[in-house]
């Protein structure tokens, strides 16, 4: 094979994952990959994930896309975290921020000192010691600073219209050389010896050949699931939600929240995602505990603002393929795995897979099993870590007001999560890793936010003079409040630059 001939990549599916994959490969590997994408106007796009994680900024930047242009096209707003309501207990809420809480002191994490202050009845809510939480709750936003000041202690992401993000990536992808084919796949051709996919046949008789196929066909998982029959690891016993009823509404308030809201419901939870011109709403529920009609009715009555459409029901199942890369087929997005959008991880998980695919992109000589193994191992690690973190949101609760909450409160959790929980309960410590998603501050936010306090915290907190500790914590809280009061409002900051605003529709 010619050392310099680009590999022919065929992306199946024109949703968010498909166009992100195609555009990234075409833009970042122009000499290594020629990219074709097959999509059909007859197949709807799920458009999962209107809320994102800070990693998306690096991803978009790497493609050379300007933030303002991207925000304008997708009606995006800024996001500082997620407000979780009624999860630990009805009436309680907390923000999981893209930022930290306080500062380590003498080698001991801030949350240990907070637990000590709390024991003495001298602690404000944990969020008041986080610049990110305080700014979010005040509906204020400005980009973090680059120095070591308080204003550098947070990150941000976007909340955008996923049905606009796909087309934006399509336009970008076509501008960097992706060839689009309209059509439905009717047959998959495979090599008799290797089992590799060799070509896809379309309903109009065209035959699209390729060296590498990226399955972005969503839950259908046409290649990885249907054709290659890659085993599915089902996680619904830990994450029972399997449906979502989505319904956009008008904004009900003048302010635009720089955060996503997740409110626990009797059989799941509902999201509120503020965009520039509207509010995204949806009820993620378990069909084992409520039916679709009831869920649609529930979201209709819970949503604030005027409905802009009828509720639309999406179906899914949590889990992942045991191998996301098999033969010469790589699954990206829903074709490879699904985790409900409770922590806005859908787009991250697709981008993560794309990033690893680029790092491990096959050499012209063919796919090395070692590279496939490396990819699958990385993808599994990412999915498994997110999975445990999601399960925590359901399990760490005192709610006993519905069968759904009784189930998740009392279910057996994976051992990997069970050990983390026990370590926290007994010592206030977090199992540490540096790869993947969700580090210490995230776990602390959810544990404390959902009322799961440890029984014990670090003995060293008792050695600081109580008055000095109290004064230092109070000083931090006041500094944060004062910094936040100088920040512009979220809407004000958004509107300061018209280049990031979409035309009023």
């Amino acid at each position, binding site marked *: 094979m010619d050392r310099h001939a680009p590999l022919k990549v065929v992306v199946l599916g024109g949703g968010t994952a498909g166009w992100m994959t195609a555009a990234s490969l075409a833009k970042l*590997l122009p000499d290594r990959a020629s990219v074709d994408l097959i999509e059909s106007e007859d197949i709807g796009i799920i458009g999962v994930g209107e809320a994102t994680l800070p990693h998306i900024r690096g991803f978009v930047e790497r493609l050379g896309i300007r933030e303002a242009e991207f925000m304008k096209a997708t009606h995006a707003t800024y996001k500082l975290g997620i407000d979780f309501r009624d999860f630990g207990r009805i009436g309680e809420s907390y923000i999981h921020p893209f930022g930290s809480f306080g500062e380590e002191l003498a080698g001991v994490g801030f949350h240990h000192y907070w637990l000590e202050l709390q024991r003495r009845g001298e602690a404000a809510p944990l969020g008041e010691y986080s610049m990110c939480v305080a700014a979010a709750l005040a509906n204020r936003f400005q980009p973090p600073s680059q120095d070591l000041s308080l204003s550098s202690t947070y990150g941000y992401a976007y909340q955008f219209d996923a049905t606009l993000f796909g087309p934006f990536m399509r336009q970008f992808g076509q501008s960097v050389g992706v060839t689009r084919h309209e059509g439905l796949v009717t047959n998959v051709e495979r090599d008799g010896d290797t089992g590799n996919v060799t070509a896809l046949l379309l309903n109009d008789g065209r035959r699209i050949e390729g060296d590498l196929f990226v399955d972005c066909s969503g839950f259908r998982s046409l290649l990885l699931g249907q054709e290659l029959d890659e085993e599915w690891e089902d996680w619904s016993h830990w994450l029972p939600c399997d449906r979502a009823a989505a319904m956009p509404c008008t904004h009900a308030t003048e302010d635009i929240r720089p955060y996503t809201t997740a409110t626990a419901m009797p059989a799941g939870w509902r999201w509120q995602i503020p965009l520039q011109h509207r509010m995204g709403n949806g009820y993620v529920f378990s069909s084992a505990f409520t039916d679709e009609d009831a869920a649609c009715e529930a979201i209709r009555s819970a949503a604030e603002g005027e409905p802009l459409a009828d509720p639309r029901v999406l179906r899914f199942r949590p889990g992942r393929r045991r191998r996301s890369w098999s033969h010469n087929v790589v699954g990206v997005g829903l074709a490879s795995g699904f985790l409900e959008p409770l922590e806005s991880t859908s787009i991250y998980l697709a981008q993560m897979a794309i990033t690893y695919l680029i790092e491990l992109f096959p050499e012209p000589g063919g796919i090395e099993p*070692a590279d496939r193994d490396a990819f699958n191992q990385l993808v599994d690690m990412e999915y498994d870590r997110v999975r445990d973190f999601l399960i925590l949101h359901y399990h760490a609760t005192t709610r006993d007001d519905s069968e759904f909450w009784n189930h998740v409160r009392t279910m057996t959790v994976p051992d990997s999560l069970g050990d983390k929980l026990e370590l926290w309960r007994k010592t206030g410590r977090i199992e540490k890793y540096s*790869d993947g998603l969700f580090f210490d501050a995230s776990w602390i936010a959810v544990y404390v936010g959902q009322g799961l*306090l440890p029984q014990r915290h670090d003995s060293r907190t008792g050695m600081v003079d109580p008055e000095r500790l109290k004064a230092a914590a109070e000083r931090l809280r006041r500094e944060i409040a004062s910094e936040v009061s100088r920040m512009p409002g979220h809407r004000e900051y958004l509107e300061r630059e018209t280049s990031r605003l979409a035309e009023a529709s």
Partner: protein
Amino acid sequence: MSEPREPLRRIVVAGSGQVALLTAIALRRALPATEVVLLAVAPQGPAFADFAATSLAFTASLHDRLGIDEERMIATAAASHRLSTRYFGWSSQDQRGLFAHGGWNGRAMRARFGRDWGGGPNIEGGERPAGSLAEVLTDVGRFALPPADRETPLSLIEYALRWNPPAYRALLVEHAGQLGIGHVQAPIETIERDGAGGIRGLNIQGLGWLEADLFVDCSGPAALLASALPDFATIDWSASLPTRRVFIAAAGEPMIALEDRITLLEEGWLIEQAGRDGLLTILGVGERTSDQAAIAALGTNPIAVMPVSPGRVAEPWQGNVIAIGDSSAQFEPLANLNLDLAHRQLDLLLEMLPGRGIEPLERAEYNRRAGLMMDTTRDLLAFHYATPRARRVFGEVEVPEAVQIALDQFVRRGRMPFHEESALLREEEMDLLGALGFERRMSPQEGSPDPGGVEAAQAEFATLANRALEAAPPYAEWIAAVTQPS
């Protein structure tokens, strides 16, 4: 409601070397109300961490947190700075490469490297250009600690310190005395177990019964306390690490240099470590090399010959006993990792400091992380023995799976898998493999670099390097100036 854990009442640190001393100092500072007793048993056997005259960059940050003043180390312990280690002859006899603390500078620079030089030793078109600020400075022998009053590129430089071990130890002894750390110097007569996998107390000759809530074993390879526990077990590394004896030469002439050298000879590896108190020369050999051949390669009669039986304890924290440094893992002093491992274990202990009641899961989490630290340390050493020439000198060894995967990914794909708890950053690991002469193929993205971006990165680096050179005096002059009696 969460309660603070009941503090440890007494901690016994067993050992008398620099690891035990720094451990006692760190614990004393962390727990001012806890009695810290140093049980000064002399290290037995090849205590490479205790006798180390250098470490990695992590030690500088640990020292800083523990109040061990670097300027005092320069003034009283002959401390000097190492920015790089130069490797000679590992992939082939005439191959050479440079490992810089802190690794390479940025993705764009790497892309340029990939394109221009393929990252390997077989370069066409002349000398490889410097890949990092550290390399630029090492090549011309210029460096100084960054000035406090203005910003210079020197503050971007990572470095390791070397020192005179007896003088450094004396400095730690003085420090420990100031902190009021108790000191007992007498042999252990009996060790009494507590029935829960740990130790209740010790009978000390002439002094009697010594109890503690926590015992930290820094006693050296004998692991006096840890090895007395019922579930003590070790993991043998000798199939992967072939060095069996280490020959140490008497200190040579004082030498001020920003680099150390590690050369692979026909007999084994030879370290030449610069020092203001004299050049330190260490030779490591495998089973194939006779004492006679080793002494000839060392070029002088050794002042010490130490056996190496590489391995680690299965669980460094058992019951209420934690093994740190030489008592947890033994391996040759090849890449300045012995004391670095001890210091990172100490840091982990400080992070996870228990209360009086130790929870099994905190022990498990400590053992998981300390285990990763030890295994990634073994893997960094194993990279050395996986080079083509080392395989001839030492013979074929068992290459750990993680090393096989990393080498395959590095050579074939130009990437390095992420290793949790490794002594080196991912960039540094790649730099080390480059220094050992592994040829790295371009990663997919480097094959399609944006030429404009590469040129810009190159220009930016050149500017930065010039600014660094302007800010840095010749290192020997700087050392002379700061050590001049005022």
